[in-house]
């Protein structure tokens, strides 16, 4: 399960950009079962489940193999969309499969999880975002060079503070709504996203932004502070929704009516705004579309010529096939054109002449969360996870290369700091420590770091021979949770337990848990103290439980959330030591979004109770105020060097998404932006 892209959402880095917002960081972790879904849900799936998965940052992994057929479930092939085409894995017998024939008139995708809603205003799922994208474009996307590509509107700015949106002419809603103009977008932002009653998925994206119509096809947005990478945050990404459709709900402030409106749920207003027209959404079954002959990009002269005849299929469909074996079987026989492939079956499919497998790098990580709150380190007194050196020792005790080879079949990258290597903001290798590889891996090195940590603890932890012991002389015993049914995760958990046992003498038990239960009972809590406020909403008094001393300074939690309910003394219901249930998004397109994780002890996504040992807030501030991308990169290098040193989470790997396509399909790329040009995909 990955949080970070809510299933939908959000940043998009790697997810189909649906609606970005900080909401995505919170709340219910969505669970995507299967390594599969992770690449997805959602989906999710997926990587998903759960209530709204607006989390923005997790994923879970796992894939199973069953009797030579397949296993697990999961995978979503989240498929195309204007966003990135990141699929999950799937698995079934590849190899000598049948010789299916490809239906080149229908573009069909298999996914593992169905959609919660197709209402563009409320969707927060990546998989549903892809389903919507078949019939309704969003404002813009990014191509394989990470360049901004205007779809519905172009964005420009002089200073990063005032942004001008130029709406493309010739965009048409279905009858009776007429042409898309700037007023539709402005109305949507002002009356829906910025309202207190509508609770749309993009609410937080537009907070503090002043939007103003400046022409029939032009509007401006003024930010509270400059943001050079505003488009990359996907916050300004909007769907076109007719003003006339929204007006009755706005007048009545009818949230349920807006959420349940059939025109929105079935995208009946989509006009010429998407490559296909949605024919039917069969819940639990998928979606079916027919070609939109009037697709507006056919007339766009600022895009490659290949769009002139897009889309190239007469129809499209997204099939929900819950069983991985079924998804891969459908891919083999040509019933679908795309499905995710689990790492352990990639080689088989590479030997299949009718399928080609793409390896798409992802920004979602595999890491160990260590619980630094009072309900962590259950083995004894003095939570050792709070010491940077101890976290480094753990990172140094786990062989990243072996993990990648053994668990991810080499389809993953080592993970040292909070960015994947393909990020433009990845710091120079020499600037960051690389725990878990080369000389920085091994028992001796790890024990040395652990002993440094023992020296800082007021409790008498030590090594008794090969064994790490607590002040009473008993071996340190910890547990690590993984998602039930996720074989990859279980394997990873067992490998971690083995490495921590061999190299640090810790007795680690591996335990399976349902992702939703872990999220609700261990990872988050809704029962936390809140500050007192006056009628204007200003904080007037912060209770003592929400105050702690961090690096010698008193810090107040004035806006506690379910994912950071307060200082380390405020905890979720259940005790836990370590988890690998959730993976997190590292936001390579706009790393400033990572402030949600690391912007000081009060950062609003901080379930583990991490207190940065460096001035993270200042570094984020200076990055925020950068006036050029170079300045920004400079500021971020220091940040990521510090995070590599601190290991707030024990960073392990970035698994790739491995996606199978029918041979001859033109368009898919082995790039994070895979899927940006989906309408132009075609068979030769």
């Amino acid at each position, binding site marked *: 399960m990955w949080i970070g892209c809510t299933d939908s959402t959000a940043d998009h880095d790697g997810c189909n950009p649906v609606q970005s917002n900080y909401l995505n960081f919170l*709340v219910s972790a969505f669970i995507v079962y299967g390594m599969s879904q992770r690449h997805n849900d959602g989906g999710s799936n997926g990587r998903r489940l759960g209530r709204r998965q607006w989390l923005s940052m997790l994923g879970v992994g796992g894939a199973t193999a069953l009797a030579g057929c397949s296993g697990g479930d999961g995978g979503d092939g989240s498929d195309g969309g204007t966003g990135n085409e990141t699929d999950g894995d799937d698995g079934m017998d590849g190899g000598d*499969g*049948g010789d299916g024939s490809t239906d080149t008139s229908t573009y069909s995708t298999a996914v593992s999880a169905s959609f*919660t809603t197709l209402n563009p205003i409320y969707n927060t799922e990546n998989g549903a975002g892809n389903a919507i994208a078949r019939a309704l474009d969003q404002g813009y996307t990014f191509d394989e060079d990470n360049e901004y590509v205007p779809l519905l509107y172009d964005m420009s700015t002089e200073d990063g503070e005032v942004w001008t949106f130029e709406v493309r002419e010739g965009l048409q809603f279905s009858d009776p709504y007429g042409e898309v103009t700037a007023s539709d977008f402005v109305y949507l932002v002002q009356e829906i996203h910025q309202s207190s009653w509508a609770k749309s998925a993009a609410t937080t994206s537009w907070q503090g932004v002043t939007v103003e119509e400046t022409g029939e096809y032009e509007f401006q947005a003024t930010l509270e502070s400059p943001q050079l990478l505003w488009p990359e945050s996907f916050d300004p990404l909007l769907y076109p929704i007719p003003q006339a459709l929204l007006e009755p709900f706005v007048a009545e402030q009818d949230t349920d009516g807006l959420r349940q409106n059939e025109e929105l749920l079935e995208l009946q207003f989509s006009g010429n705004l998407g490559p296909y027209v949605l024919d039917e959404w069969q819940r639990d079954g998928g979606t079916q579309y027919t070609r939109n002959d009037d697709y507006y990009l056919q007339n766009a002269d600022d895009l490659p010529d290949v769009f002139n005849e897009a889309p190239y299929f007469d129809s499209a469909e997204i099939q*929900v096939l819950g069983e991985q074996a079924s998804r891969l079987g459908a891919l083999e026989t040509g*019933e679908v054109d795309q499905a995710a492939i689990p790492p352990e079956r990639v080689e088989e499919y590479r030997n299949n002449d009718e399928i080609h497998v793409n390896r798409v790098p992802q920004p979602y990580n595999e890491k160990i969360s260590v619980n630094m709150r009072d309900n962590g380190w259950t083995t004894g007194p003095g939570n050792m996870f709070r010491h940077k050196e101890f976290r480094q020792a753990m990172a140094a005790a786990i062989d990243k290369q072996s993990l990648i080879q053994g668990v991810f079949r080499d389809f993953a990258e080592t993970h040292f700091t909070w960015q994947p290597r393909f990020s433009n903001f990845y710091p120079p290798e020499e600037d960051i420590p690389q725990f878990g590889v080369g000389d920085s891996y091994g028992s001796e090195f790890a024990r040395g770091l652990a002993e440094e940590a023992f020296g800082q603890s007021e409790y008498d932890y030590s090594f008794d021979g090969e064994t790490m012991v607590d002040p009473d002389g008993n071996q340190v015993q910890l547990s690590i949770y993984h998602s039930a049914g996720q074989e990859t995760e279980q394997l990873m958990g067992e490998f971690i337990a083995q490495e921590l046992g061999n190299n640090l003498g810790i007795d680690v038990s591996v335990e399976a848990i349902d992702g939703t239960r872990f999220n609700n009972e261990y990872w988050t809590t809704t029962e936390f103290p809140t500050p007192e406020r006056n009628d204007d909403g200003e904080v007037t008094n912060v209770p003592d439980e929400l105050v702690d001393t961090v690096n010698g300074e008193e810090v107040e939690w004035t806006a506690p959330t379910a994912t950071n309910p307060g200082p380390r003394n405020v905890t979720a219901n259940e005790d836990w030591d370590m988890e690998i249930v959730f993976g997190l998004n590292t936001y390579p397109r706009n790393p400033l979004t990572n402030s949600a994780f690391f912007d000081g002890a009060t950062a609003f996504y901080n379930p583990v109770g991490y207190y940065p040992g460096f001035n993270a807030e200042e570094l984020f501030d200076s990055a925020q105020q950068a006036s050029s991308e170079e300045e920004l990169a400079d500021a971020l290098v220091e940040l990521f060097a510090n995070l590599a040193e601190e290991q707030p989470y024990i960073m392990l790997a970035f698994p790739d998404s491995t996606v199978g396509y029918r041979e001859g399909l033109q368009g898919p790329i082995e790039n994070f932006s895979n899927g940006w040009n989906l309408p132009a995909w075609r068979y030769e």
Partner: protein
Amino acid sequence: MGFGKYVGARVLWAVVVSLIITTVTFLLLAAAPNPAIREAATQAALQGGDPAAAVERERELRGLNQPLYVRYMDFIQSVYTLDWGWSESRSQPVTEALLQALYYTAQYSIPWTILTITLGPLVGVYSAANMYSWRDHVATGFAFFGYAIPNFFFGIILLLIFGVWFEVVPISYDTSAAVFSLQNVRQLILPVFVLVTGSIGATMRVSRNESAEFQNSDFMKTAKAKGVSPLRAYAYHVMRPTLVPLSTTLVGQLLALFIGSSLLVEVVFGIPGLGRLTFNALLSQDTNLVLGSTLVFTFVAVVGNLLEDLVFTVLDPRINYDDR
């Protein structure tokens, strides 16, 4: 008590039972935390608002600030008027979601049930008639094989063989296929086969053993002595008494005609039926939908119990209700 009064009393009792169940369900729901309120608090916190005030607003909006008995009356009224609310996980009314899922479930569960309740006793009686012959062993082996192999595994294997290798059936389920069409038969033949083999075993074995008792009974000897054909003898004099003890399960299975969904088979074959609906509703904590499907199962179970008792009298006239 006569039959009519007995039926009347049982129907009344069924109403009471369903009321008790819905009341317990209501109380459990009332005691459980409401996820919508949690979301409201979180959103308020994110926007710099007051979570406590947001919770209060949300409670008011959802009528949770009203006295328990008022909420209870509203709840009961909604249940019995089929106003079951909105499914958040599917974005459609609960009743529509249930009907839609039922439509697909029925397409495989009806043939599954009919084949099971007809083939099971037939194969059992045939097996008994040829007891300890190779025919008996084949039938018994078939029954045990179907009973022992997990449905989802069997389904995957069959899909692999007939879908992927031979390509005689589709892998994915096409919801747009007409109910009575060759396409639908092709896509449903495997799930029905898997389910029938899974459920036929128990029926077949019980009917085999039951019918063995009657083969050498006096009335069979008389029938044979009178020259009754073997087919008629088995159909009338063996099959009928055999079905009396079997009716307990058979009627249950008949009722399951529409709700006897199979989650795993639906997952493997991609059928958007009731099993997946219920499972997904639970996973996504879609309270309204969970409640709706629970109520359906509850009502069917209550009615099923009633029908089961009544069916005894039809099958075996010696059972009556005069003394009750």
